[in-house]
Structure formats: C-alpha cells, structure tokens
C-alpha cells in the first residue's frame, strides 16, 4: 500500500483510513483524502478498509500566509 507516493510500512489486514490518519497524527481539519483517486469523505474514514495494493493520498491543505 502507498501513502502519499511512499510505501506505507504500517500496512496490515483490516487497516482503515481512520487508522492511517490516527497513526500518523494527521490532525489537520482540512484534509483531502483519496483512495485510488476516489475522494473519501470524513464520515467514511472509519469504514473504509485499505487493500495492500491501494494508493492512499492524504493531502493537507495548509495556506501559509
């Protein structure tokens, strides 16, 4: 599984989007999450299970003044 174009070392069976966000301390409120290029909305994080061949993008939208 890939997270933001890098191999994700923490992959395991049953891993969800919410797990990845928690394990990586992605606390930012303005995240854009895409699994295999499909947008995953916040209410879907908990129930979206990731497969070993999946490509997950968790993009932080931060402004920077």
């Amino acid at each position, binding site marked *: 599984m890939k997270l*933001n174009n890098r191999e994700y070392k923490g992959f395991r069976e049953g891993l969800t989007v919410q797990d990845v966000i928690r394990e990586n301390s992605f606390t930012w409120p*303005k995240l854009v999450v895409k699994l295999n290029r499909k947008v995953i909305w916040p209410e879907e994080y908990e129930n979206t299970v990731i497969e070993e061949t999946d490509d997950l993008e968790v993009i932080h939208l931060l402004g*920077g*003044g």
Partner: protein
Amino acid sequence: MIHICNVPRYQAPSAEELAEMRKHHVLLRSFDYERTPIMRGYTDKILTIDVGEKSAEIADIPAEVKEKFVGGKGYCLRYLWDAVNPQTRWDSPENEIVMSPGPIAGITQYGGTGKTLICTISPLTDIPIDSNVGGFFGPYLKFAGFDALEIKGKSEKDVIVVIDATKGTISFEEAPLEHFDAHVLCEELTALYADDENDKKNIAVAAAGSGADHANIGMLNFSFYDPRRGVTRLKQAGRGGIGRVFRNKKIKALVCKIDGVKANLNNAYDFGLINKTGLKFHREVANNDTKQNDMRGVGTAYSLRTLADYDIVPTHNFKFGDAPGIDEMTAAVFKSDWLTQGAADGCWYGCSMACAKASDHFLLKTGPYKGQRVCVDGPEYESAAGLGPSCGIYNPQEVLEINFYCDTYGLDTISYGTMTAFLMECYERGILNKERTGGLDLTWGNAADDLEMMHQIARGEGFGLIAGLGIHKQKEYFAKMGWGDINEMNDFGMEQKGLEYSEYSAKESLAQQGGYGLTNKGPQHDEAWLIFMDQVNNQIPTFEDKAEALYFYPMFRTWFGLMGLCKLPWNDIVPADNALTDDPKMVPEHVENYLNLYYAMTGNKLDVDGMIRQSERVYNFQRIFNIRMGKGLRANDAIPYRSAGPVFEDEYLWREERYDTQLVELAGYTEEQVKNMSLQERMAATRKYREAQYQTLIDAVYPKRGWTLGGVPTVEHLKELGMDLPELLEVVEPLLAEEGA
C-alpha cells in the same frame, strides 16, 4: 472565553490633551489639489512628496508603466528603480519609500481586499524590500486620488504629512507633543484629524515607533479604526526595515483623511459581478470556517499545534522543530483565554474572514506602559512562533506582551523573534555573556530580559543598539570583536541576503529551502510556501516537480501583491467540494473568483497564464534590480546550513534515527557503513548530501525561471515577457557575456 459584548470601550485621549497638541501644531507648507476620480480601479496618478523640500507633485502614471507593472508592488519597484542608483543605501536621501494599493484594493465586497505594497532600499539587505500591509492607509490613499505615493528626501525635524481628500490639501506639519509609539500616536492623530467620533473611521495613519529610530528591523504600522471597541488598531508592513527608513527621513506619521467608504468607489467595470463573487465567498466562510481553519476564531495562529507535529515550528533558533511546550500556547488556549470572539475583526472593510484577532484590555507588566491596559493585535502565527518557541518562550501572556511592544515600537515581530533566538543561541554558546550584553541574561525562555532588550532598542541604549542591527551585522560585529567564529555563526544565524528568516523550519523540505533561498527579497515565505506540499503531502517528489513549483507559486503569489489582495482568503478557506476538483491545492474556484474580480474591476479578461505573465514581468524586474544593487546572483541565493540540516551534535541526535535512515535511503550509504561511522562522520555526510541537493535544486529552478545557471535572466526570456527594457539589458548583458550565455 471573552466575547466582544463584554469588552468595554477604550478610553480616547482627553479633549484637553488633544487641544494642547493641536495648539502646538505648526503648518509648514500646504498644497491644494484636485482629486482624480477612480476609474476601473485606477486613478493613474502618483503623488510624490519630498519631506526635505516640503514639496508635493502629482504626475500621470504612463500607460506603458500601467501595462507592464500593473499596480501595487509593480508600481513600487518601477518608481523606486527610477529614484535610486547602485550606490544608494537605505539612508541616502534619494532612497524612497513607495507604496501602492493595486487596482482591486479598496473594494468591500470580497475578503482580503485592503492590502498595500511598500518598497524601499532595505537597511538589512541593501536591495529592494517589499512588504504588504492591511489597514486603511492604502485604500484611503487611492480614494484620495492616488494609485501610488512616492516619498523622498529627508526632513531636518520630525514632520507629519497630511493628505486631506475632504479639503483637497496636502500639508506638512510639525506635531511636537504627540507620542512616538504607534499605539498612542495613531490614536492621537486619529482623534485630532477626525471631525467627531463618527469621523474617526475616515482617518488612516501610517507610523513607525520609537524602536524604528534605532533598529534596522524597524517596520511601519498602518492604522484601522475599530468603532466597536473605540480604539485605533494596527497592521504592519513588517519586513525589511521600512520603518527605519521612514524614521530616518524624520517622518513622524502620514495621515490620510477621506469623506467615507462607499460601495463602489473604485468605479468597477462590472460591479454586479464583484457583488456576486463576494456573496459566494462570504457564504463559504460562514458555512465552512469553523469546520476548517477557524480563522474567525483564532486568526493565523491556528496552525501552531499541527506544525509542531511535523517539526516545522522553529524551536530554539530553528535548532529543533517540535516546540515541546506548545500545548501551553495552542490556538485553543489563545481562543479560550486571550482573544476576543465575535468581533468583526477584518483589517479592511468587508473581510468576513476576520483574522485580525485582538486581546482586549491586556495588562502590560513591563516597559513605559507598565500597568496600562491595551489592545494587542494578534498574535499571528509568525509572531507567535518567532517570539515564542524559537526563543524558548511558551507563556501566552509573555508572547502577547512582546508582540505588543514590537508593534508599538515599530519593530518587525518576525525579524525580532528570529534575531532574539540567534542572540540566545550565541549566549548559550558563550559568544555572548552578561558582560557583553550589559547584564542581560539571554537564556532560552527568559522573556523578562528579552523584553528589557527591546525596551533598550526603543530607548536607543545599551545592548539594544547591537540587537537593532539585525543578525547579518551582528555576526560581523561579534566576529570583529573576537567573540565568535564567523563560519559557525553563518551556519546557525538564520538570515539570508541580510533578512531574518520567517518562522518555518525547512530542514525536511528541500522545496521550502528553495522557497526561502530563491526569493527576491530574502527568506520570507510569502513567495513560496511549499513545506506541506513537499514534506508531508509528497506532491512534488522530483527536482523537476520542485522546480515547477518554485517557478509557478512565486509568480502566482506575486499577483496578489500587484492587485492589493491578501493571500489568506485564497486557501485558508476552501469550498466544501474543493476535494472533488482536479487540483484541490490550487483551490480552483477561488482562482476563478480572482479572475472574475480582475475582469469586473478593469474590464479586461485574464486567465491563469495571464496572471503569471503579469507577475513574471515584475518578478524578473525585481531580480535585475537586486543585481543592479549588488546582489541577486547565485552566490546570494546560498542559505545558512541550519535551514537545510543539523549544524550541531545535539541537533543531529534529536532526530538521529531520521538522519541515519536518510543516509541509507537517500544518500547511498549502506546500513553497515552508517553503523560504523562516528557522529561527526554521519553529520558531515548528511551535510554533504543536503548541500548538494540544494545546488541541484538551483540547477533545476533557474532555467525554469528563464535564468542562467548563474541566476541572471536571459535576454530571450526578457524579450518573451516584453521586458527587454534598455535599463534592464544594461544590467544583465555584461553578466550574460561573462557567463557565455
């Protein structure tokens, strides 16, 4: 939590005090003028004042200047170029302060539309600095009939310049009894020039502060009157020492008076489209801000906690990045205990983002205003991070007090924070001690002595005079005195081109190292803030990707400075369905909004390529301006090593596993080799790798920008931009010949 309903009004200066001040005013000279109405965002007039001669002239802005330089920063740089020569320094009489609000500035229907750009030859860098500022002065200047203001000469005595659009006069006056510190001076001048309480909102003041008399890091405040609180508040053109130049010209303040802000003073081409675009934006803020950045609740300091999670908050002079005490001063703490909620905190009318937060009736514990209760604007992220964790300070009260005194003394919070952190590290390393600081104990976290140092700057005494030099000149001074090694200080003194770094630790983002190092004015993030896109999102992994970003974003962001726009409403709030767009990081709907605003204002259609082209002309002009002034080549884009990697052993050991892993995964060493290397060997290998990466990045970026590998814009590129102006070719052609380009 403090709500605006419970905030008592501030006390205005007494009528007796004001009468006494007014009695002592001396009118030196006055001119009548006819106000030029604004048409489609422009008056096409520039006002030039000479504070030495006490003269004022109004001239047309030629169509060619308008076409190539657009407004805002473009106008500032064009007129500054014409005023100075390669020998001009910040305190030369011919050095000018030029300010221009840009064609969209002054509308009240969209967020962030009150910005003014200011340029001068900087006392820190000896090249042009550009700094943007909110508040009333820029838009009021335009409403008074001027797209730009050019200030030249030096006055012998302190002078104020009053542009009164209600009477059609420009006057030079002495105002000897008013205070020098900005929070008092702006309050006094607002009250003095307003016809009555209701008229205070029609007065704009620009003023520095007593610190700017003595410090190269002096900045310029722009006031905005807050009728709900009954107080004159301040926004800052912080970077690069503009306030120092202002005070060196003996300008005490600029005042601009108008007869009211109305909906369409800019005479837009399609006012209905501006309204429509603004309504869409305001709805978005109302619906999404609390779920996104909460700009209305805490302002830009919202990001402190998250940035600390990624080792980005400068900690102990950028040595570390995790700000271990950050929980004591997170956005939540500021919101619950310090910042007033529910106020219309825009620094210009109509900004629903309202991020100009304030701490009301804040009790000062030190300095000349000790015991008084004041309105403290901010802190913004930069101020909080630089004055706080970078100096080892995590107490919100102390951060707010330092922030307040920086503002009223006219000192840039970013430069002051980064500079103080440098001095604290010098103190830690024995380069400084109590004997050398005149008794100041500059230990990490010692806010009391930090404040005392700032009060010394304002009084122009003791170690404050050395502090006021800024890091670049401090390094030279410490080396000359035999206190420290210049090479070592160059590694950890966080300045480049003479300007102090703004507050992001870029060690883990090569693109951000370039975002700082490959700027025109010096390391300020407003050109290219790529740190999350690179370090966390990994969206620009290759040199080609990074180079493209370091071409596109500086140009895209420059455009805001041509127009008089704030960048924050671009991407600190996004439409709810932004994630579904092709390129969420660009916030395509907002880019469309800006193109609509430009068309609606000027009647001219523009696309993204056109935006970039407008910026690119000005950007390359500024690069060549730097070269003309003696900087602006590849050697000047070098960065202090701390911006790229760990300088000292404890710095490496703090993230030893990360650095060791990178030696294997990125730098080509085997695990066995790394295991057998000493700490010093691993540090040297890390440095060699990272410094080479930065050079490779430059090799990729310069050609993308149309520059040679030496950093000089090529003639072909200038021709393509329509910028093959004789004065530019005169600068670049000899260098291109030397390079064989």
